[in-house]
């Protein structure tokens, strides 16, 4: 279903899509069965000249089965759905596979700021690359992201990854993803965050190791400058000014 509209570009995107299919089949069955029965009864028992309605209390055994058996089946289907939903949830939200790289994602009214660990793969060092409104990640690598917000609630939403997480001021949330398909995707803010909510987006670029290396090269900060600046996240906005301007239009 979802894959009709969206590429499945992360390792767990397929799990979510499968779950959506499972739910669709199980509840779709009940929906169609109930609606079909409903309209058939309306047609079958429409008022006819000289035909009186029957007196049925609902205590008749042979009629009660029509409620009780479907009811038991609904319960059974519910159990399937719950197990499948929890399995996907635990995989995406409750497990943290060991990371190949850790990035930092900061939300604020109304922009996304990303910190890439740079060539040394560790955050907080001088070669960190700060970008606004553009995130570059390498395909087939497991990423951890440290998500935080500077002001109000935001929500880090990458539809192509089937991933969403609210950013809460005062907390740092650690999540993960593993991109599996190169290309450009949307990053959205899914939580209303003020008048700029409608323009708060960013571009996600999933690229090969070589492309990322080239990108890092081009964006590597001049070490002396960054080392003297405390609040790099804000100043980092200027390091990728072209994309920032594009995102705001």
């Amino acid at each position, binding site marked *: 279903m979802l894959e*009709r*509209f969206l590429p499945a570009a992360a390792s767990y995107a397929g799990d*979510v899509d499968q*779950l*959506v299919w499972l*739910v669709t089949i199980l*509840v*779709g069955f*009940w929906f169609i069965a*109930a*609606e079909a029965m*409903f*309209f058939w*009864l309306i047609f079958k*028992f429409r*008022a006819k000249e000289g*035909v*009186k*309605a029957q*007196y049925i209390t*609902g*205590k008749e055994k042979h009629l009660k089965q*029509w*409620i009780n058996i*479907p009811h038991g089946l*609904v319960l059974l289907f*519910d159990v399937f*759905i*719950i197990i499948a*939903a*929890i*399995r*996907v*949830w635990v995989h995406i*939200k*409750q497990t943290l596979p060991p990371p190949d790289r850790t990035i930092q994602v900061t939300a604020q*009214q109304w922009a996304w700021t990303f910190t890439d660990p740079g060539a040394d793969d560790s955050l907080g060092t001088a070669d960190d690359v700060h970008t606004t409104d553009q995130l570059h990640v390498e395909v087939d690598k497991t990423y951890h992201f440290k998500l935080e917000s500077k*002001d*109000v*609630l935001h929500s880090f*939403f990458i*539809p192509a990854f089937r991933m*969403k997480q609210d*950013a*809460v*001021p*005062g*907390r740092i949330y650690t999540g993960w993803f593993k991109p599996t398909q190169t290309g*450009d995707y*949307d990053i*959205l803010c*899914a*939580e*209303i965050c*003020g*008048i700029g*909510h*409608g*323009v708060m987006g960013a571009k996600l670029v999933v690229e090969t190791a070589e492309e990322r290396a080239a990108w890092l090269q081009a964006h590597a900060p001049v070490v002396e400058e960054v080392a003297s600046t405390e609040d790099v996240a804000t100043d980092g906005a200027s390091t990728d000014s072209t994309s920032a301007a594009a995102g*705001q239009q």
Partner: protein
Amino acid sequence: MSNQHDAHDHHAGAHAHHDEGWFKKYFWSTDHKIIGFQYMFTGMLLALVGAFMAYVFRMQLAFPGQAVPGWGLVSPGQYNMLITNHGSIMIFWVAMPVLIAGFGNYIIPLMIGADDMVFPRLNRLSYQLFFISVLLLIASLLVQNGGFGGAWTAYPPLSANKDFNLTPLGSTLWLLAVAVEFVAFLLGGINFIVTAMNARAPGMKAFDVPIVVWTIVIASILFMASVGPLVAGAVMLLFDQTLGTSFFNPNKGGDPILWQHLFWFFGHPEVYVVLLPAMGIVAEVMTVFARKKLFAYKTVIYTIIATGVLSFFVWAHHQFVAGIDPRMANVFTVTTVLISIPIAEMCFVYIATLYGGSIRLTTPMLWALAFMAEFMLGGVTGIYLGSSGADIFFHDTYFVVAHFHYTFFPIAIIAVMSGVTYWFPKMFGRHLNEFWGKVHFWGTIIPFNGIFIPLFILGAAGEHRRIFDYHSFPHLATPELQAMRVFATVSLVVMLAFQPVFIVNYLVSMFRGKKADKNPWKANTLEWTADSPPPHGNWPELPNCYRGPYEYSVEGRELDYWPQNEKA
């Protein structure tokens, strides 16, 4: 549950003679029917305001950046204000007053055979507070810097801090309006519960009470039990806004997620607070027009109670990805998916009620059947959102919007229309025009699906909520998705174009419609034994009750109905 006789003797005398002025009769009345009308008409007028807001922001979505006829250009701030107040108005100032307060006031005393509510003056106070809340709400839209635009859920820090939301006065007045309104409904709800428990007609046992009365009483209990935390939260948020406290301010030790728990601890039971009365109205209409006893009356009552109890244990499914402990999601997935058990049972029972019936497709019956047909889609799509793994994707997308409109529209519009057309002859002593009633029905139902089916698809494509213009998001700005937005908007305009049919039909029929006798639908419940319309005090002599409300087509009887007050 006892002493019904005493209460009746006392009231019957007190209300016998009344000849007051126009103002006292319609604006200062303690008559439950007039108070019901006050709630109902206020709610319906506000529904027009909410509908106009929907028109403006849907036009903006379909034709972004173009002036909307009747409004002009829509700024991002205005857009947020419109969606916020559309949601708040439709839930708090339309669904609640019309369904619970409106119908509850009008039909509970009539259906249980009482001459009025047990606390008539408390009832009047309830409406007066509600009216003040309406004034506060309207004021919040008109003050400097505009109305509140932080979504009807009002999550802090956005809602708490004027530097973030830019609407200092608008957000405070909005919050005050919500708080005052809840006090009003609390007073009304207490009245419903006490009245239904103590003022029933002699002989009317608990299981002789019509389903709609049960549903309104249980909804009132749910409301009473859930609203406390929200009012407390609202006061805390008011203090955060105006006094600089920091209950929800993380920079000073507060916690923004606390508000979400308080809000949804109320907010989810609230869904059932409005759903249950809607299901009740549908039960009355379906039994009358299928000439059938409700299939398994007691089962329905047990499912109502089970739904009510379970609804207190599902709130955090609104917060799966909000930053709560992820392990909590597992518990709430189980409870949320399990709520499908009583709801599915209720739907099965309603469907089974049609079996063996003699179904007349009158206007009220069409609305009631449409409620079932549409609500089932709203019900099953909720399973996607309750399944935590899938909700990671669906949360805050248009899939959610489509899902809850498939529940709330059937509740607040379809079931209300069913009730309004069903009790119209009782309320005004005249019939609505059936032909124009059916024109209005089809002109509403077909476009309704045209609005919200595309939104399911847009949600599946990842379209996120509360965005005034999708141009900033390349994957959502494609011509195909834009075409769906236009389709939804055109459907909305068509639906709104059919609403004057109802308004004119309603007003004309009120004065010129065909005269209705006491019991035009040949129904069993006690309200149909009073005059149409019933006078102040309802009956010259209060009725007794001898049997349950759904004894239709009983074998061996010549008539296919058997009023509750008929001795044999």
